[in-house]
């Protein structure tokens, strides 16, 4: 197979499967080859410095932001800690899939109002991130945060509440048009019997609250319980297609062709794990097509965590406020369908918030780091050399001529011919690179 595998393809894969494409990982990937790079991403193994011992993530309690330690019972600090994980993990694909599941099987702190439950759900998604989808669907129905979010406590024998049953079909597994209102009413009966205790945070099964009568769901009749519904759902042809489309829109393109959806749906059916599905996707030539590269808008989480990974920025609670202004608050998706995503991230106020974040990040960047050899090209008089050094260092994709020209003009005007190191000029240069249209995309 004559598949092209250069720094461009490697960086594309790293941006999509993880949160950034730092220069050392890109170079190591080129040496490792596509297959091995993909294998390591799925297995959660380091790309560069494979021999080095994996850098353990610091526990939340050991981290400081703005001079104060993070607190585990503060939702804001948990948001920040998850960003820290995204930026510092050696297993970025698992972290990316944790974010995928959070946007797919949503729950929001705004209704759940329990930090520990939200974190527990997050751990559940992380442990199943690249695992079996059906297993995840079975356990998420008994996840306390999910149960509170979709009113499972109110779903009792003789008094069904349809909220969970509806979203399981509409948003989690099948998609609209593949079930009837009657299917929802029947499934709600089957899901009865589960209860979460708010004070202990534990879910339990209460047989007396379960409706063990006969139900007909999607044409099948039986005395179904929660597991029974999930069994019926996983027999539906719509399910692998639904998940395949969502995975493709998350990892590949906003507009996947029907053929591509079919191909990935076949993998969803055949592969025992999501990791297996993604391994095939990342090894397919279609994933590296010119039209696929740089075509997705970065989510705010990717935008912020990406800079955290590629720049020596101090941890600050300001990231939470910045993310909110960009339209994404971790642990608080806007509604049960999760974030709209795609080009909706480019809403004017959200986009302006990215620019202002870039400005403040460049402004806060440590001056010594800014003037370090890592950020300084060999030929200090060439705008082009500066541009290449920095865009590689930051893992931004291909820069177009308009961006290159604008940045070169800025460099000319500020630091290129300055007699002394012009840190303000370097900050402006960094700010503009982060603001560039290319840096909004992945």
């Amino acid at each position, binding site marked *: 197979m004559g598949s092209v595998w250069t720094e461009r393809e490697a960086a594309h894969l790293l941006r999509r499967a993880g949160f950034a494409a730092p220069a050392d990982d890109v170079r190591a990937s080129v040496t490792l080859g596509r297959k091995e790079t993909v294998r390591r991403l799925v297995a959660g193994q380091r790309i560069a410095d494979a021999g080095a011992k994996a850098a353990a993530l610091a526990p939340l309690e050991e981290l400081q932001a703005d001079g104060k330690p993070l607190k585990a019972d503060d939702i804001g600090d948990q948001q920040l800690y998850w960003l820290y994980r995204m930026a510092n993990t050696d297993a970025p694909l698992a972290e990316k899939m944790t974010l995928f599941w959070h946007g797919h099987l949503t729950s929001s702190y705004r209704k759940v109002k329990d930090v520990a439950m939200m974190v527990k759900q997050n751990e559940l998604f992380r442990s199943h991130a690249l695992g079996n989808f059906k297993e995840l669907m079975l356990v998420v129905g008994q996840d306390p945060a999910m149960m509170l979010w979709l*009113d499972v*406590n*109110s779903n*009792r024998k003789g*008094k*069904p*509440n*349809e*909220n969970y049953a*509806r979203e399981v079909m*509409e*948003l989690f597994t099948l998609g*609209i048009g593949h079930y009837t*209102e009657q299917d929802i009413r029947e499934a709600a009966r089957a899901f009865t019997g589960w209860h979460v205790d708010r004070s202990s945070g534990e879910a339990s099964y209460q047989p007396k609250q379960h409706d063990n009568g006969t139900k007909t769901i999607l044409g099948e009749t039986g005395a179904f319980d929660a597991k029974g519904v999930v069994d019926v759902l996983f027999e539906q042809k719509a399910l692998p297609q639904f998940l395949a489309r969502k995975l493709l829109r998350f990892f590949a393109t906003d507009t996947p062709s029907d053929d591509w959806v079919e191909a990935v749906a076949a993998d969803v059916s055949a592969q025992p794990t999501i990791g297996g599905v993604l391994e095939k996707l990342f090894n397919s030539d279609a994933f590296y097509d010119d039209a696929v*590269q*740089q*075509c997705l*808008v970065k989510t705010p989480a990717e935008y912020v965590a990406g800079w955290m990974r590629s720049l020596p920025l101090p941890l600050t609670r300001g990231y939470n406020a910045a993310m909110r*202004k960009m*339209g994404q608050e971790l642990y608080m998706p*806007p*509604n*049960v*369908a999760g974030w*709209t995503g795609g*080009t*909706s991230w*480019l*809403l*004017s*106020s*959200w*986009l*302006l*918030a990215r*620019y*202002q974040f870039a*400005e*403040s990040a460049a402004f806060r960047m440590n001056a010594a780091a800014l003037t370090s050899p890592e950020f300084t090209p060999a030929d200090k008089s060439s705008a082009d050399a500066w541009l290449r050094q920095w865009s590689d260092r930051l893992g931004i994709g*291909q820069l*177009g*001529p*308009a*961006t290159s*020209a*604008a*940045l070169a*003009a*800025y460099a000319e*005007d*500020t630091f290129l011919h300055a007699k002394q190191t012009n840190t*303000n000029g370097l900050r*402006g240069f960094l*700010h*503009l690179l982060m603001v*560039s*249209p*290319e840096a*909004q*995309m992945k």
Partner: protein
Amino acid sequence: MNMSRREFLVKGAALLATLGIGGPLVLADKYSGLSAQAAAGTEGGAALPAVDSPVLVVVQLSGGNDGINTVVPYGQGVYYDARPTLAIKQQDVLAINGELGFHPSLSGLHALYKQGKVAVIQGVGYPKPDHSHFRSMEIWQTAEPDKISQSGWLGRYVESSLARETNPLKALQIGGDANKAFNSETAFTPVIQSLDTFQLLDARIKLGALEKNRLTEAFLAMYDPAKQLTQVRVAARRGQEAYRAASALHKLSGAYPGKTEYPNTGFAKDLQLVAKLLSGGSGTRVYYTQVGGFDDHANEKEQHARVLKEVDGAIAAFYSDLASLGLQDRVVTAVFSEFGRRVKENGSGGTDHGTAAPLLVVGGRVQGGLYGEYPSLSNLDNGDLKYNVDFRSVYYTLIEDWLKGDAKSVLGKTYEKIAFV
């Protein structure tokens, strides 16, 4: 005079500094220092629309507002049978007549109703109603119940009826999430959360005028969609449009003499921003706002009372603010939700997704009163109300009779109009 670029940057900055203009508009004004001066002298005079330019404010209640407990059929026993724990007691209802009344949280709207400023259009819906939040909201936002459409009803209005308006602020979404109502291939609608953050550069970081100028110029050069790579063109276009909207916004006079106190809620702040923009002469013809929290599957009693109060307080303050600014006759506010809720309450003190519901229209020029018929509470469709008025009739009326726009091209055909404006 043939200044070098570098000279321009220095002199341009100095000139602008003497005019007292900063922020993102420096570059937009660089070839038109005079028009900026003129505009400053007449408080945005050129952008001021004719006084009779009607304005529509859309309020979207997200989550499915319980219409039955909003306009309460308190004269019917069947209402109390269906809602043993959720029914509003007769003595608590804010009566419209002997049969119907507002939820007790809606005291502001009730007062406006009594002044003849509120039209209640009853039983609004569409054929074969969808019970999904997302599909139903999409249907309301695109006005296309029978097919998936990529264009929004207000996007089509902007395309067909405001095509000659070059004002980048001609339609605005205030706050909220992505919304299909303004979707359009050709027309772009900015989304604003707040005035002070809606700009290219962070106001908290102090930069010299020269540096601001440089950064802004580099930004505009990068954000030229025609010169960008195909893949990133969408980002370039949106960024350029956001910049234009921000420049236009910060050129407004900023004169807002409003003294009305608004409740301390996000939605009230959004409506106050609308009032500010109106009084600043933004020339905006359509505003879109959203308020959430209506998906009352459980514990509806307290939650619904709270969110309705939030809506009521904000709309009442907004109306009184507009009245004090002399703008109440130029503005019509239409309040809708993606669906109502089921007639019978569920076992959790809540209600599940339903269908038809009342739609409220508020404004100085509105012909207040009841329109359409309250749907029967006993002749139901699988537990749900049957609609009487197609929501596209309301849209048609708003576009043709209020906004004086081309309703037929927006909605594809004519719909029966309702005489509320």
